């Protein structure tokens, strides 16, 4: 009885030593692809962005699952095909969330990186008051101390965390003295029932450089020290320290109105009007429009405008270059001074008789 077998590709024939790349192309990549796709060690993992949106699913080998120390048990190595992940991305593996903590690199065959298991969720508000949430890996930098800072009169908590968190547009603007609430949310109800408040922490160090090498992603190192919980300003229900009501968002819209079509003919002008409306469609008076024209290089100095009140008059000089395909459109954008309302309109340039 024959056994099941197959041939990945023809075997290498070593002749001069210059066939190395052929062998890699012929065997190694096929073998790796097959290992990742069907191998027992391989798993399907989710690559997630900072907001935990799944951006890709890849097959990867996750190593170091069977750790030999408590510290190592929080660390994994991930192997997959080149270009699969980046420093600071999240990886969901076996329903656990990890953060890629090192810059991935490859040996021309496969890519490898170190990842840490996320254990702390930070929540805060950005300047607009929007709630931002990021998972991070935190290690206790004071685990071998008493946990309290004793002075002559008063004893205060002394707990310090070193955190790694992805660099993105929301985390990069975190500043010293930003406060956070942290607790194991599985026990929140029990903690509240026993009159125990969340632990409050204050950001004392933001290191944007040490672990940010890549053009994509990167790691931000933060240091948090325990701070006093403030029942007046800290919102326990939302787990946000120093909570403030978000900036009211506009309920309405901006419109650019005009007569006829959104067309300006060569050598002529056309007037466009800014209209700001509330949620019921009623016109809002007193909003000052801010206009902007996004012009192509060939349109510079040939498309001009003048504003007055709610109106903008756009003029186009008589130059047939402006009617050629690729040059015959520009974008007019409208917003208000506070950037609460905005609108865009694509305007076409046509010949006088077009």
């Amino acid at each position, binding site marked *: 009885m024959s056994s099941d077998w197959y041939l990945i590709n023809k075997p290498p024939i070593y002749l001069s030593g210059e066939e190395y790349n052929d062998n890699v192309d012929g065997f190694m990549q096929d073998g790796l692809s097959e290992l990742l796709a069907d191998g027992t060690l391989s798993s399907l993992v989710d690559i997630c962005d900072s907001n935990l949106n799944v951006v890709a699913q890849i097959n990867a080998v996750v190593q170091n699952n069977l750790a030999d120390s408590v510290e190592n048990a929080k660390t994994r190595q991930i192997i997959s095909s080149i270009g699969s992940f980046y420093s600071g991305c999240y990886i969901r593996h076996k329903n656990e969330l990890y953060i890629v903590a090192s810059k991935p690199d490859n040996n021309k065959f496969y890519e490898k990186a170190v990842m840490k298991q996320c254990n702390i969720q930070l929540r805060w508000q950005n300047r607009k008051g929007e709630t931002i949430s990021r998972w991070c890996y935190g290690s206790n930098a004071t685990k071998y101390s008493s946990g*309290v*800072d004793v*002075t*002559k*009169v*008063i*004893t*205060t*908590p002394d707990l310090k965390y070193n955190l790694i968190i992805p660099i993105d547009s929301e985390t990069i603007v975190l500043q010293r003295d930003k406060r956070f609430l942290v607790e194991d949310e599985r026990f929140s109800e029990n903690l509240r029932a026993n009159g125990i*408040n969340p*632990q*409050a922490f204050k950001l004392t160090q933001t290191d944007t450089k040490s672990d940010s090498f890549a053009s994509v992603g990167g790691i931000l190192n933060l240091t948090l020290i*325990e*701070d*006093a*919980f*403030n*029942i*007046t*300003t800290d919102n326990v229900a939302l787990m946000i320290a120093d909570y403030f009501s978000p900036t009211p968002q506009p309920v309405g819209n901006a419109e650019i109105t005009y007569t006829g079509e959104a067309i300006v003919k060569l050598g002529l002008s056309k007037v466009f009007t800014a209209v700001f409306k509330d949620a019921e469609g009623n016109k809002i008076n007193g909003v000052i429009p801010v206009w902007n024209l996004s012009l192509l290089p060939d349109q510079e100095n040939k498309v001009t405008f003048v504003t007055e009140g709610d109106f903008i008059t756009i003029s186009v000089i008589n130059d047939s270059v402006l009617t050629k395909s690729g040059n015959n459109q520009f974008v007019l954008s409208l917003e208000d001074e506070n950037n609460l309302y905005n609108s865009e309109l694509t305007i076409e340039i046509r010949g006088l008789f077009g």
Partner: protein
Amino acid sequence: MEAYMAMEEIKMSVCQRLLASENVLKYIVDKKGDIIFENIYPFYRIPSTISDTRTIINMSVNINSIQNSTLFSVMLTIWVICSSQDMKTNDGHIRTDVLAHEITSVLQKCKGTWIGEMELKSNAEGTIDEKYNTRVLQFLLKDIVVDNQCR
């Protein structure tokens, strides 16, 4: 009255007067409740770890000088301790300053086993650590009579 009883009575007297003052209480806690051993400590060092932004008053009473076998003077020291997060009051004052002022107002009128009024000797600003600010008040209580028969 023995000396230690006199000192305890001073502490009780101070606590009672602080608790009776609406102006003092409003700068310590927003809600009324049992604040002895939570916000007002009748001794120098706070025994528990403070992990919130509560405002604290603690005190020590020390015999400053013994005039003779029946009279002595006492130095009452009061620490007004506020979280540096919570220094600004709702009505726009600096919490340690306004609280020290209110306490001084209350205690200077306070009569007890001493002769005359409590005399404010010093009012000094400082910090406990990087998280807590303080203002330290020192009052002199003169000529407390010690009852030899009770010794």
